[in-house]
Structures are given as C-alpha cells and as structure tokens.
C-alpha cells in the first residue's frame, strides 16, 4: 500500500492535459482544464483504511506555500494539524455522528461489545439518531430495531433522538422526522466547517453546507461512539466548476447526473468533489443537497459546496451552535478540474441499471413506464415536490401511470399540505397532486427508495419500469431484481407521469 503512494501508477484517467467533456447531444463546448497536482504526497503515513489508489504523481517543483482545499482544511482543523495533504491518514475529531434504524443497532452492538455493557458514549449531544428506513412495516425485526435505538438513547441520555412509537399515524409522533439526511439539515445539525459522519452512504449530502460529511460502517461507528474519533485518509479533490444561467427546465439532479455520466460510477472513488461556479451559487440549499447527495454514486468520499449567504440564511433559525466556514485557498491543488456550461445542458436520466448510464430524457421518449416515484433524500424534499407540482400545474392534465409521493420528512409533508405553489393562485402541492390524480402523499420515510420489507409502500414487487427521483437504479434497488429504474429530476419524473413514457419536461414547461 505504501508503494502505491510513492510510486503511483500512471493509469489515472485524469492524466491528460485537456479532455473534452461535451454534452452528449451537443457539439463539444466544454472543456476540462487539468491542473497539475503540486502537492507533495506524504510518504510517511501508510493507508490502513482506504483502498490503494493510483494517486497522481507528486510534481517535484517544490512549491513554497502550499494551499489547501476546503476538504483538506476541514480535516486539518478536525485533526488539529496545521497542514494536510491528500493521502495523509489522520485521527479526526468528529462533530456529529448520525445513525439510523438499519445500522444503529449493529453499531450499538459493536460499541457495547467493545467498550462494555455499561460504557458511556463520548458525547451525548453529538450523536444524532434518526429512525427512517423501515418504519411503516409490520416486519418484526424492523420494529425491534427501532426499539433497540430507543433503549440505547434512554440509557445514554442521547439528546437528539427522533423517535416514532405510533406507526399507525406518523403525525402522532411529534419527534419523528423521517429521512435522516434531510432531517439533519432541517434540524440544524449540518454546519459549515464541521465533520459529520453517518452510518449511511448518503451522509455526503451534508457537504452542501460546506462541511466534511461521509458515510462509514457499523464498526467504525461503534468506534466513534466510544471515542469521538476516527482514522480518515485525506482525499484529493476534484473540482467541478459549473457556470451559466440554469435553464428553467433543469434541476440540480440533472447537474449531478451529467457529472456522474461524465466521470462514471467509480470516477471519484476515494476522492472529494467540490462544486463551485455561478450556477452552484444560484442554487438553494435543498438543490445543493441534491448535488452532494449523489457524489457517492460517483464513488466519491465527500462532496462540498462553499458556504455563502444562502447557507447562512438557511441556518439562521436552525442552529445556535457557532460555526466557522472554510474555503479552498487560491493556491490549493486539485486533482483535476471540470468545467461545465450549464446553460447548454438538457434534462437527463440515468437508465437501468447504473447511475452513470446517462441519456437525454428526450432520447428515451419511447420507453413506456409503469409508475413514477417521487421521494427519498435526493428527490423527496420540499423543493422537489414544488418542482413536480409546477409541471402538473403547467399541463393541467392527469397522470397516466400510478404516481407515488413519499415526502422525506414530516416537515416536507407539512409543506406539501400548506405551502402555496408559486403561480398556482394559492393552491398547495397536495391540491395540485390530487387534481393530477397522484397517490396521496405517504408517511415520511425512506419508503421504497431501497426496496425494504415486502409491505413497504410503493415497493416494486413486480418487474416494473419506474421513473424515480431517487439516487440508485441497481438491480433490485426498489424491490424486484428485474425492475427497471430510470433516475430523473422531479421535473422529468412529473412529465413522465403525465405521458406514461420517459418525457423531457420541456414538453410541459414552456
């Protein structure tokens, strides 16, 4: 492993000095400029917990002042080190550890086994436990797992536990939130400059707040529960510069599908993805979350968006904890830089069975579908439902296939029923969905995003074709192994519901 650090293999796909990244259906307009990695890769620390990577060969120019990327700076602060470089392994102080009902019981089991039955967690205020995955099911083990979380939180006096007891009516559970990544943001646990670890691969969503956030396993989480620390390897950063005015028919989901299609599902493996540019600056917080949510679908370790006035405004009424944002230095080294002119992008989908199987929505117009699913941490936030409602409103028509709506959290559910949709004469999303013939918005949870127990609402129990606003379309992801999932933005999903075929939302959003 050490040898891979110091004698990198030159097979990385980012070696070329210029690479054409034109959009699939357009003449190549965008180009990527590759900057040389100026930093010396540390040779003294070996990797214990990360796969061997074909690191870039450190240039030997010997720069005087070494700048750091956002991710490097956050990890430097959390490890109390003045300077870090990609490849360094450091013990990092964790600000927040999040776990949920699927991985929580396992993490707790490991914590107790390793630190003792009566061990105390490292900090009762820094652990956030959010049941969200298998909630509205009669599956006994699933229900038992939430009980394990409850007992543990009581024992340890965990401050932030978003419990659910009455499964028949989620509204009777004021503490219950729903999908962890959205709840973390809504409850003010995501803060610029901090380190957030979670036992869920989409923990990277929180990078939208300019923090380091990544997914870990149960054993690592058990370790963090007891110590508040974890050994992490500093990832090199890929920078994505997105400029240009975002066309009104695009959403952040299109941007990230474009990027994953470009770099593939392994293109950012072990790397950090930093999103900057005028387009990114124009995105609201929920859209930035969508962008960062899917970095793991490119193999990324974390994604970051620099915090700005949009971030600070969002946080205003959500947290009183002081935070300190950090930004990439002007001299920071990026492994490579990609530039996109977003004004030229078209609505996209990822075809079965891989998130990098990119196609233009209009290229798939002959694909007949059986259902549409709008939900999850990627596409089940308030802005996502507002977007879908906008398409239904513009068309004034009814959906042609069953359309399932699963709000991510209780707050999103409430927004669907109370927020007036802009330009709808005071109508709420729920009214628009009802008029369009969608299913009634379900109880907030992960729902069928990951299949789950057989009785999960909207689970694909038969081999159907589904357009979904979720993040993964691997075989079996939403239930049936032969099911086909087209990942799309809420605009494209709503447009497809209206026609019964994969549909470019420009057909309705004129």
């Amino acid at each position, binding site marked *: *492993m*050490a*040898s891979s650090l*110091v004698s990198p293999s030159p097979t990385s796909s980012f070696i070329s000095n210029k690479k054409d990244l034109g959009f699939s259906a357009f003449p190549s307009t965008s180009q990527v400029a590759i900057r040389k990695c100026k930093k010396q890769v540390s*040779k*003294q*620390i*070996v990797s*214990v*917990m990360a*796969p*061997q990577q074909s690191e870039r060969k450190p240039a030997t120019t010997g720069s005087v002042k070494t700048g750091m990327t956002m991710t490097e700076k956050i990890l430097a602060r959390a490890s*109390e080190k003045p300077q870090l470089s990609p490849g360094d392994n450091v*013990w990092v102080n964790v600000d927040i550890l999040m776990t949920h009902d*699927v*991985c929580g019981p*396992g993490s707790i*089991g*490991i914590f107790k*086994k*390793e630190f003792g039955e009566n*061990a*105390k967690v*490292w*900090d*009762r*205020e*820094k652990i956030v436990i959010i049941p969200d995955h*298998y909630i509205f099911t009669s*599956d006994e*083990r699933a229900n038992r797992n939430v009980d394990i979380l409850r007992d543990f939180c009581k024992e340890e006096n965990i401050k932030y536990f978003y419990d659910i007891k009455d499964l028949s009516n989620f509204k009777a559970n004021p503490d219950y939130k729903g999908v962890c990544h959205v709840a973390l943001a809504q409850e003010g646990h995501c803060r610029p400059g901090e380190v957030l670890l979670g*036992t*869920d691969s989409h923990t990277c969503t929180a990078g939208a707040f300019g923090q380091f956030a990544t*997914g*870990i*396993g149960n*054993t*690592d989480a058990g*370790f963090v529960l007891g*110590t508040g*620390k974890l*050994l992490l390897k500093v990832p090199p950063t890929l920078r994505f510069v997105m400029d240009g005015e975002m066309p009104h028919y695009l959403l952040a989901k299109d941007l990230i599908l474009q990027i994953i299609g470009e770099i593939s*599902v*392994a293109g950012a*493996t*072990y790397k950090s993805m930093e999103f900057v540019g005028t387009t990114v600056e124009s995105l609201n917080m929920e859209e930035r979350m969508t962008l960062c949510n899917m970095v793991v679908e490119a*193999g990324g*370790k974390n994604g970051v968006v620099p915090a700005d006035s949009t971030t600070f405004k969002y946080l205003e009424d959500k947290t009183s904890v002081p935070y300190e944002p950090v930004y990439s230095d002007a001299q920071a080294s990026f492994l490579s830089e990609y530039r996109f002119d977003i004004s030229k992008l078209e609505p996209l989908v990822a075809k079965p069975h*891989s998130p990098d199987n990119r196609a233009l929505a209009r290229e798939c117009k002959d694909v007949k579908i059986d259902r549409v699913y709008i939900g999850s941490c990627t596409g089940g936030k308030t802005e996502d439902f507002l977007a879908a409602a906008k398409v239904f409103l513009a068309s004034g028509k009814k959906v042609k296939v069953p359309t399932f709506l699963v709000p991510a959290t209780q707050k999103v559910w409430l927004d669907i029923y109370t927020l007036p949709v802009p330009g709808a004469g005071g109508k709420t999303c729920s009214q628009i969905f009802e008029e369009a013939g969608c299913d009634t918005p379900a109880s907030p949870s992960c729902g069928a995003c*990951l*299949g789950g*127990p*057989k009785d999960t609402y909207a689970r694909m129990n038969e081999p159907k074709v589904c357009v979904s606003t979720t993040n*993964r379309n*691997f*075989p*079996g*992801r939403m239930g049936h*192994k*032969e099911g086909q999932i087209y990942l799309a933005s809420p605009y494209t999903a709503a447009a497809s519901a209206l026609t019964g075929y994969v549909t470019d939302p420009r057909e309705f959003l004129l």
Partner: protein
Amino acid sequence: MAASLSQALYLATFTSSASKPSASPISPPSIKVPTFSPLTVQPLSSAFTPNVAHVITLTPHATSTPSSIPSDTSTTTFHGLCYAVGDNIDTDQIIPAEYLTLVPSNPAEYEKLGSYALIGLPSSYATRFIEPNETKTKYSILIGGANFGCGSSREHAPVALGAAGVKAVVAESYARIFFRNSVATGEVYPVESEVRICEECKTGDVVTIELGESRLINHTTGKEYKLKPIGDAGPVIEAGGIFAYARKTGMIPSQ
C-alpha cells in the same frame, strides 16, 4: 511497521485532544495513550516489507501489548473454489435491503445474514452462490471486476460474505466504503488484482491466493496472476478488525 505507525497517529491525536474542553458531562471510555515518542518511528520504506521483529522493538508497552503482534501476511494463503462476478457489484446485490434488519452482532442473525449473501445477483447467474437450503457457500474466494461493493454503506455486505464462508475477495477495484468495512470488520480480505481476472476465472475453478507473494493461481486453467499487495490493511484484517487490532497494539485497553 504498520502497527507502530498507527500508534504514532494515535498518540498524536489522543494526547492533543486531552486539552480540548468537552461539552459532555459524561467522560468517554478511557483511551490508553501510548507513552513512546512518535519520533522513534522509522520512516516507511517505499515497499511494504513485513517485519515482525521490527514492529515489536518499536512497541513501547510490553506489559499491555500481547507479544503476538498481528503477524505479517506473508504466509497467509487461501485455497478453494472461486465464484466469478462482473463489474459494479453493488451492495444491493451482495445483500438486498430486505435482510438488513438482521443484526450481525447477534450470532444467529449473523449466520442467517450469511445465507443470503449475493442473493441479489440477477437470475443470469445460473449457478447460485449459495445452494437452496444451505447457509454457507462452497466458494471461499469471490472474484469480481471494477468498483466492487459500490452503493450503500451497509457493513452487512462484507459481513454477509464473511458469514457465508468467503475468505477473500479479489477484484479489480473497490468502492471506498466496502473496502473500509472489510478492513474494519476483518471479515474478508479485499485484494486488488492487477488485471481483470474476473474475465478469465470461471465459477468453480480451483484457486489459491498467496497473500505474501501477492499471487493468485488458478489450478483449473494453470494460469497465475499478480495481485496488488494488501499492505497495511493485512495486519488489521488478520487481527480480526479495527478493534482487535487497536487492542493488540495497545491503542485501546484490552477488556
């Protein structure tokens, strides 16, 4: 050498954090701080050369550290039938979400988890990884392509493979969290191959992996392949995961 370096890391952080004010009224589980200076650690040579004696000489607290420091992986070999899969085998195929309610720290559920390993593979895989009504696989070596274990962070994935009887996975590359989880749990050795072995080895071939030699031999075809060295992940897996390793090397107190 791996052990000593990691200890140095531990020292660096755990001592410096002692002065950090904690908001919590509850004291964390005690962490043993090694008392040696990290300066005694030798710079790592560029090639991984297992050197047990060297590690022991650098271990400062003989009283708390078992003398059986995780041995090097030079003699570790695996021999058995292999099962070959393709690229991008994600965690939904390794262990579908409906089985995630099984808690691996419970022995009965651990066993059960193993019986569902790779049940999510599409039906195009005519030979199933685990025969109906069996709980273990007869294939102790799994061979995959690129980006093995992508998808969710579920530790159930390497655990299910380990519980089913898999000793090592040999793939062209791994998704980050799968690799991390394999090492942290010590369930399976995630070994990387230099070439796409998954296209040359067929399910049912008899293979041997020699970790020390970084070599895979397919006895059925008579071919040999080079593997990338497992490096410092080796001793961690051999110890049985991150906790066992941390204890063996005195990073956290033994129970």
